[in-house]
């Protein structure tokens, strides 16, 4: 079946602009995670949804970052007033159950470059 998909695969934007990154999880997966992977680092947790609600958003670096999952399926990560330090690969993962945290299936990521 289809895996986790993320669009766009690459996004180049100017400093100060607003961007939206989309994640389509595996059908039926209730849990959805966003991670950020900077160069030379491992994925870093940002936010976790169980259904439509954000169960844990403690990883969001500041209030410029926001994520939604209005219907419990597709999620959008929104970044306002982008900064060069936001450049990274943004990974989305979904899981059939929030309690089995390691059974996460990752998408290919969106590479964001802020110029």
């Amino acid at each position: 079946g289809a895996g986790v998909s993320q669009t766009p695969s690459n996004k180049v934007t100017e400093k100060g602009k607003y961007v939206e990154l989309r994640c389509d999880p595996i059908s039926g997966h209730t849990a959805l995670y966003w991670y950020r992977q900077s160069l030379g680092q491992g994925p870093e947790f940002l936010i976790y949804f169980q259904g439509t609600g954000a169960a844990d958003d403690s990883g969001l670096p500041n209030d410029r970052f926001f994520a939604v999952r209005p219907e419990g399926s597709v999620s959008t990560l929104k970044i306002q007033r982008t900064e060069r330090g936001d450049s990274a690969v943004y990974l989305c993962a979904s899981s059939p159950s929030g309690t089995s945290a390691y059974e996460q299936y990752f998408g290919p990521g969106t590479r964001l470059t802020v110029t």
Partner: protein
Amino acid sequence: DQQVKQNSPSLSVQEGRISILNCDYTNSMFDYFLWYKKYPAEGPTFLISISSIKDKNEDGRFTVFLNKSAKHLSLHIVPSQPGDSAVYFCAATGDDDKIIFGKGTRLHILP
């Protein structure tokens, strides 16, 4: 403050030999340890896990060893194959279900 550490950025191993990837952690509250494999332009793929109550888990060519007293785990791949060339992330999770990743080790399998 890194809770999961992979101190070797890269490792080269001859095809057919054993690959050993190492990982250290600092948080004694972790209850599951994981290894993920990542190819370029793809997301990480779950490879193998081990519960904190065990010291070994084996799955085909992959074995993970856990030494809780030393807060150390390792992934053994034997025999190493060309398709094993990838970045390997060590990771850990606890009660909050967040996965904490290390920086990764790039494994090169040499022909």
